């Protein structure tokens, strides 16, 4: 499927900032099932961009701006061709072995409640793949999807599991923590989702979990939608949790409050036309 993505992030600052430094992970890679035809990062001020790569193989972009600056708009746009692989991930750059993703991470450390939830799912399903589908469905039922963009502070998996509604980050982190409590390598994926019944731009991107299932390899599980990623999904960055895969992390010198505005639109010209 041909997907057109437009993702704009606007920061407005109450006080002029003397410097901005941002770490972006907004550039998808091409591999089997995902072909990036065109991709651009556009910044509306005098910024210097430096491309790099992190330990997970994600493309990174450092953004440096000297102030004074009161507002910055970082716009990412491109076109990606996707195939439906029923959630299976193949041929993506994998510099780190799966076993690395068994370790707990700050946002996705399992607590006792999550571990019990996961153990029950495994006991019912009998095999890891079935257990992952059961976990995905269970989290989908348990945590209602909250349309609002994630709060300033990302919740931990334990906090999210105790809440009755949450964002895609919460669903993904609970899924990650649950699968890890069973010893399965699991990671966070940030990316985009095309929804055919879309009602206009969204205020956040998307994210889900990937589990390395014995005999299958990496498989995506999107607990918000109780669905394994298909041709509607674009993978951008992976990490142990959101902290290592977030599209944009920033630091600024200048103080005062900030206002964040995000607009994400994913369209499929052949489908919508």
């Amino acid at each position, binding site marked *: 499927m041909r997907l057109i993505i437009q993702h704009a992030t606007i920061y407005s600052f109450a006080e002029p900032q003397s410097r901005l*430094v941002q770490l972006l992970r907004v550039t998808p890679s091409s591999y089997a099932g995902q072909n990036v035809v065109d991709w651009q990062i556009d910044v509306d001020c005098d910024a210097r961009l*430096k491309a790099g790569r*992190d330990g997970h193989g994600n493309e990174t972009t*450092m953004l*440096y701006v000297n102030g004074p600056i009161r507002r910055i708009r970082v716009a990412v746009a491109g076109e990606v061709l996707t195939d439906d692989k029923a959630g299976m991930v193949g041929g993506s750059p994998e*510099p780190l072995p799966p076993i690395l993703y068994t370790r707990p991470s700050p946002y996705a450390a399992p607590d006792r409640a999550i571990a019990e939830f996961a153990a029950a799912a495994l006991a019912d399903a009998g095999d890891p793949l079935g257990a992952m589908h059961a976990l995905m469905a269970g989290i989908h039922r348990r945590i209602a999807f909250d349309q609002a963009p994630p709060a300033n502070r990302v919740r931990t998996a334990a906090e999210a599991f105790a809440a009755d509604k949450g964002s895609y980050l919460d669903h993904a982190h609970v899924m990650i923590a649950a699968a890890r409590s069973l010893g399965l390598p699991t990671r966070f994926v940030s990316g985009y989702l095309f929804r055919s019944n879309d009602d206009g731009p969204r205020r956040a991107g998307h994210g889900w979990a990937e589990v390395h299932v014995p005999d299958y390899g990496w498989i995506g599980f999107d607990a918000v939608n109780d669905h394994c990623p298909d041709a509607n999904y674009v993978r951008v960055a992976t990490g142990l949790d959101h902290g290592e895969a977030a599209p944009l992390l920033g630091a600024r010198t200048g103080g005062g409050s900030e206002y964040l505005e995000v607009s994400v639109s994913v369209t499929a010209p052949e489908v919508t036309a």
Partner: protein
Amino acid sequence: MTERRAFDEIMGQGDEADGRPEFAALARWIRETPLGELQRRQAAAEAAFRTLGITFAVYGEEEASERIIPFDIVPRVFTAGEWDGLQAGLEQRVLAINAFLDDVYGERRILSEGVVPAELILANPQFRTQVAGARPPHGIYAHICGIDLVRTGPQDFFVLEDNARTPSGVSYMLENREAMIRLCPELFEMFAVRPVDTYPDTLLETLRSVAPGHGGNEPVCVLLTPGHFNSAFYEHSFLADNLGIELVEAADLEVDDDFVWMRTIEGRVKVDVIYRRIDDDYIDPLWFRPDSMLGIPGLISAYLAGNVALANAPGTGIADDKAIYSYMPEIVKFYSGGEARLPNVETWRCREPEALRYTLDNLDKLVVKLVDGSGGYGMLVGPTATAAQIEDFRAALIAEPHRYIAQPTLALSTVPTLVEQGVAPRHVDFRPFCLTGTGGVKIVPGGLTRVALREGSLVVNSSQGGGTKDSLVLAPPRERQAQSQFQFQGRG
């Protein structure tokens, strides 16, 4: 009980009044110097340290207090032969540590060949994903290692810990020596002691050698401190002074275009090498803990781009992790091709069921340590523990065995030490500082001797009532003349 049978480094194992023949003069000095005089000199040294502000903060106390680490006036001495053996072993060890780091953050040959379980490295939070696949300038990771050694007999040295992150204590090596030369000059006439005051120059040379690229200009090196609230701040400022480099905090540095710049009144200066005394977790809020106020946004990007050398490199903690420690003999052999010259202390990995069973059966005899603990916290010393402490540890071990290792209670060597009742043997350990640059490994002949001041105690950590001593390394007999002249020239 252990302490009566322990090897005394000056007095030996026997009952001879003069102890080991090579140190007979020191034994006489201890015996013949009036106690009041030793006490006076020790008090003078401690007063000087207090004036200098060589203090440390003790964690976990109700009143966070600034204390000086007690100083002991009786030095510890190594013969030239003992030092040669140590030096060869240390050099082999730190070369292996650097080769190991280059491997695990690169090809991971040691994992694919099954020498170390892959899970132990990759699933360990000390293996930093942020810098996986990146190689520091010149491929050197652990530029400064403080290897903790213990001794149980004349030839029996063991590595207790490989401190490959931001080891501290070298200021005590230098300050203790200054105090000893001033207060006990006769000892330096008695013995040809090799100088330690070459350390700052050697460290600076090491730091400069690992600057990225081969630019014509002299590399700019700085020392990055978390600030004056840090327990080792005195050492940070002391070293910066002695190296003649800037002492900076996060606010003094900025990253631009993936290069690091220092703000000065004359404008921005590009920084090539950062001797950082901030832990990985706090060094860059974009790549590590986002709540860190001590870090520099983008510093890791500059490192990944190869534009700055960080000493030590991010991620070296995987080499001194207590869970990895027990594999060090295999690691040394894998990279050096030979047996480890400095052995490890025998270690039971409680993650292994048999080792756990042995540990639980022998808790009253063993030292049990948290794999991720430090500074003597989270540690059980079986022979001196109360029944309640042992039961607490038993429960903790059963709950999370993978977090613990156990070691035998060693009869650590002793050195005569000035205590209230006079001079008495106290247990010691030793931390020499090994510097690795493009010119190879350099070890200044000396180090930090820590002494457990409480009778029979084996815990030497400063946070647990330990003190320090000067550590004298003797020149080979034929060099004696030249060395002692140098010593006096150097000190006027």
